[in-house]
């Protein structure tokens, strides 16, 4: 991986008293390659390499007996710093009725994640209600219903209803009626350039005023990740994001890009198709995965 490549470069430094500018350049090329291969946003890579270059010309590296390892350490620390310095707790409403809404592009794992969230909250002693306001995808409501039954969590669906806003409002009433303390709202996948669908999203948000707005992001997403996050953030003010499918071998560079460019924190990660495959995220683990 990257660490071994960087150490290779500096191994040939043995006998040299200090890193040259060319040595640093060679290392930065490897870092840039690793990050772009990991789908980190082009601009984020540029800024990251510039920051690390500056640090690598500093006292600590220059005076070190193992400059290569120092650079690896700097890269790792910088990544963890960007990824990790955040509050990854889910917001809870002071009213005692918390509404969590999930958004994202098509197929990223929103419906599956909704069920995972519900199970997690249930295990924490909460009383969640699941609802689907996806009035577009065939059998979307059924999919959520099946998952809800698997985890023995109540669900509210309206398979024939065409208005997402209507279902959302009814689900709120349903949740309060059932004395639930959390409503998890699964929305339809959508393209951020689909203005009609973005309007629907804004309408749903305005109607139920979510406590926690979560963007669901697929680990394999490429360079568009930042634009997607920015677009959703501008439309609906994202509180956090969840990265899914981290059980694959996609490096997940989008996590770094989104965090760096929007400040939105990563709250959880999904690591499989089963409802149990859900964890808190560890910045150090994600950092080493991104570096490869």
């Amino acid at each position, binding site marked *: 991986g990257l660490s071994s490549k960087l150490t290779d470069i500096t191994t040939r430094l043995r006998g040299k008293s200090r890193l040259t500018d060319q040595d640093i350049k060679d290392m930065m090329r490897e870092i840039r390659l690793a990050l772009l291969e990991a789908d980190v946003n082009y601009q984020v890579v540029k800024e990251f390499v510039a920051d690390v270059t500056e640090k690598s010309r500093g006292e600590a590296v220059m005076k070190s007996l193992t400059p290569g390892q120092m650079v690896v350490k700097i890269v790792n620390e910088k990544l963890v710093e960007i990824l990790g310095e955040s509050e990854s707790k889910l917001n809870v409403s002071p009213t005692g009725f918390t509404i969590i809404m999930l958004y994202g*592009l098509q197929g990223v*794992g929103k419906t599956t994640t909704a069920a995972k969230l519900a199970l997690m909250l249930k295990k924490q002693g909460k009383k969640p209600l699941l609802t689907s306001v996806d009035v577009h995808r065939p059998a979307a409501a*059924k999919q959520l219903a099946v998952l809800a039954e698997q985890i023995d969590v109540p669900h509210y669906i309206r398979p024939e209803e065409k208005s997402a806003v209507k279902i959302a409002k009814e689900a709120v009433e349903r949740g309060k009626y059932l004395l639930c303390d959390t409503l998890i709202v699964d929305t339809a996948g959508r393209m951020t350039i689909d203005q009609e669908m973005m309007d629907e999203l804004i309408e749903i948000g305005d109607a139920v005023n979510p406590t926690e707005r979560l963007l669901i992001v697929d680990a*394999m997403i*490429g*360079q568009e990740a930042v634009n*997607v996050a920015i677009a959703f953030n501008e439309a609906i003010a994202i509180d956090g994001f969840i990265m899914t*499918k981290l*059980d694959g071998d*996609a490096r997940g560079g989008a996590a770094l890009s989104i965090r760096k460019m929007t400040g939105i924190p990563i709250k959880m990660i999904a690591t499989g198709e089963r409802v149990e495959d859900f964890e808190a995220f560890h910045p150090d683990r994600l950092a080493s995965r991104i570096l490869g």
Partner: protein
Amino acid sequence: AANLGIFDEDTLDDLEMILISADCGLSASTHLTSVVREDMLKTGDYRKEHVLGILAGEMRAMLSDGRIDLQDGLNVILMIGVNGTGKTTTSGKLAYRYKNQGKKVMLAAADTFRAAAIDQLKVWGERAGVPVLAHAPGADPAAVTFDALQASKARGVDVLILDTAGRLHNKKNLMEELAKINRIIGREAPTANVYSLLVLDATTGQNAVKQAEAFAEVADINGIVLAKLDGNAKGGVALAVTEATDAPVVLAGLGEGIEDLEDFNADLFVRSLLP
């Protein structure tokens, strides 16, 4: 400055950024930029139209495209790919297309694992006017495959579209399950024209290459579908994918409706990648 219609070192840097931002990947983007640079040095022609022409030509050379060629008798289209890319939706769109071409079509619900996967495909079958062969949820996908092939042969089906479960390519057991489905097809329908379609999500980054390579090992990819090309993502990774697998991109998914499927247009695709 490209806005004067002239390319220079700055525009070449911009070019690399544009290509990387379109998910072409560092290797392809560097290659394309150096091809352009070499030509500019050799011909001395720095005009924008000339440079973009060279770029488009090289991209076009890297990309393989094609069409699904149906043959007489049974055609089995095997839909494969990682989770959530658009296999089931594309199955519905394809069923509709071939039904409208007067073919006898059948859909088979070989995703017996995911919640409501069978229900989802059944809705598409209704929309396309095509029967859906399905077992109960949790059934063996191999059994569904077997039944679908028998039914297709018995009913004189022209096109059998086998929708499989999403599977991450690094999961050995799931890839083995796919290899088994493939073996069953080869055993039960040895004279059928088998067309294995890998469905890629156009928003995917460099992992698409790993996906394609892994799937090619177990199911011989005949064609690629670039789904969700109606979004912002350019799908530039298709260049690296076709280079790595020799499989042509044959279809573009351009939306969530049953008619949102088009033959892949390589020239249009390349043009969308150009600055």
